[in-house]
């Protein structure tokens, strides 16, 4: 039996997951929690948020996120891939910054509009 806190939404339900019983989940207030409990103990995933350098914009960094959750063990590799990137304006909301992160189907996308600005 493993105790977990669900991270799907800010409710943070306290879950109990029984690995010996097909990863049965109790303590969840919604179905998303049940899915989370199972996945977290088998193939945990995370959405990654970070930022990349950008030239010509109002700030020096453009925030990005993965468009879906990645296997947790790829977090550092994914962030390392970001170090290769340097954007220039204009950047649009949702624009793909890196495709197929670490060979997965996930992409890093920009999470804001950035236009040319004289600083």
């Amino acid at each position, binding site marked *: 039996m493993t105790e977990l806190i669900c991270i799907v939404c800010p409710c943070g339900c306290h879950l109990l997951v029984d690995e010996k019983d097909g990863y049965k989940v109790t303590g969840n207030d919604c179905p998303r929690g049940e899915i989370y409990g199972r996945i977290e103990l088998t193939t945990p995933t995370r959405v990654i948020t970070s*930022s990349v*350098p950008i030239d010509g914009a109002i700030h*020096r*960094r453009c925030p990005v996120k993965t468009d879906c959750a990645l296997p947790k063990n790829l977090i550092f590799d994914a*962030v390392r*891939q970001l*170090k*290769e990137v340097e954007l220039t304006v204009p950047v649009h909301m949702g624009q793909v910054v890196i495709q197929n992160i670490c060979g997965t189907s996930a992409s890093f996308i920009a999470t804001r509009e950035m236009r040319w600005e004289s600083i």
Partner: protein
Amino acid sequence: MFRFFVLNSLTKWGIVVFDTAIIGCGIVGAATAYELSRYHLNIAVFEKANDVACGATKANSAIIHAGYDPEPGSIMAALNVRGTKLAFDICKKLDVPHKKTGALVLAICEEDIGIIEILYDRGKQNGIQDIQLISGCQALEMEPNLNPSVLGALYAPNAGVVSPWEYALAMAETAVRNGVTLHLESEIVSIQKTKAGFQITAKGGMVCEARTVINAAGIHAADIHNLACEPAYTIRPNRGQYYLLDKSQGAQVSRVIFQRPTIEGKGVLVAPTVHGNLIVGPSSEYVDGKNIAVTREGLIGVAHMAHKSVPGLNLRENIRNFAGLRAFSDLDDFIIAEADGTHGFFDLAGIKSPGLTAAPAIAEAAVELLRQSGLVLEEKEHFIDTRRVIRFRELDVEQKILLIKANPAYGRVICRCETITEGEILDTLHTVIPPRSLDGVKRRVNAGMGRCQGSFCSPKVLKILARALGISPTLVPQDQADSWILTENCNKKVPPCMI
């Protein structure tokens, strides 16, 4: 970083010769430089830090004392009283924030009554005209937040508060504008006696000669003295810790509130600052080395004592604690004299309280010592003796409108808590002693001195400084040169590596 190069001094085989080298640019060094800059002399000031006023001058009670405390007949007493007169004049001339608040020394218990009577007598002997002994009721009428069981007080209307670092900076700037050269980040590592005077070597290799040396090196005065002379005194750094309370507490008292003095010093005071805050402290403890840490015990001690004067003090409104090291010498009085056996070397040492107050008078005494030693003092015809600083928040609406129209940089508020504009910050970069750090900017214009302590403005000030100095933001220090703030530029490309 910057190096101020001497352009117009006499040179002998490439080594510069000064009439006087002042070592240390705290309040005493700055006041002495200012005073000496009235005369046709070649003066250099050497300061080990990257800015003026980096020692005790930036970490003290900021009081201009009336002068009832020092022993009558002592040098301290004479220079305190003379210094009080000079201080307010200089502050007016050089646009240094100051306020003649007056001071009360409280008698809380019966024994204290005798003490304040002694102080009253001392004050009279020291030549202070307008001190009075008042009753507890009168004290409470003046200051309703005092301990209701106050029995009486000594009232000194001529005491006040000042911004001590701005005071030092203003005098140092004026000295430089009048021809004094200031060498920052120039710790003196050797002083050799020569035929003409002294050969002085600073860290970094600069060598110069000076006919006379003035030692105003604060807690390092004995070390500097011993470079050139037979040891004659020791300095024991004594640490004083403080609370600085939010402006919402600034009106708890409107005068400087002292308790009866002890052998250690004037005790814990509660006072308004020129900036509208409330300062509470100091403690008093001898420390090893240069330990300016604030301690839990020290603060508890200050709190305990301070509540005896102002019981309703709300120390939860603290915005900053700090500590300063005072140069207590092993002698009772200021050491203002030519070193025994070393002609031309003058100590201005052991300058503890009332050093801030006495500084301009100490400078006059130093000048007199130089005169007696044979230095010819010819007054300049054109001596710059004014200074004006634009303080946006103090202007009225009309003035603000005009100022911003003339220069939009004054319309960009950088420090929210203290309402400090970009224009004012840029102004500091055009003075003769521009800041080299965030704290240098803070000391000049107060950006970062407010209740958020730079949380909001420090990224902005840092960017402005980096741009103005033409350096990467990673090279802008918090205070001294090695106090780095940012580690690295996230934007530089790095090859993939193991994190």
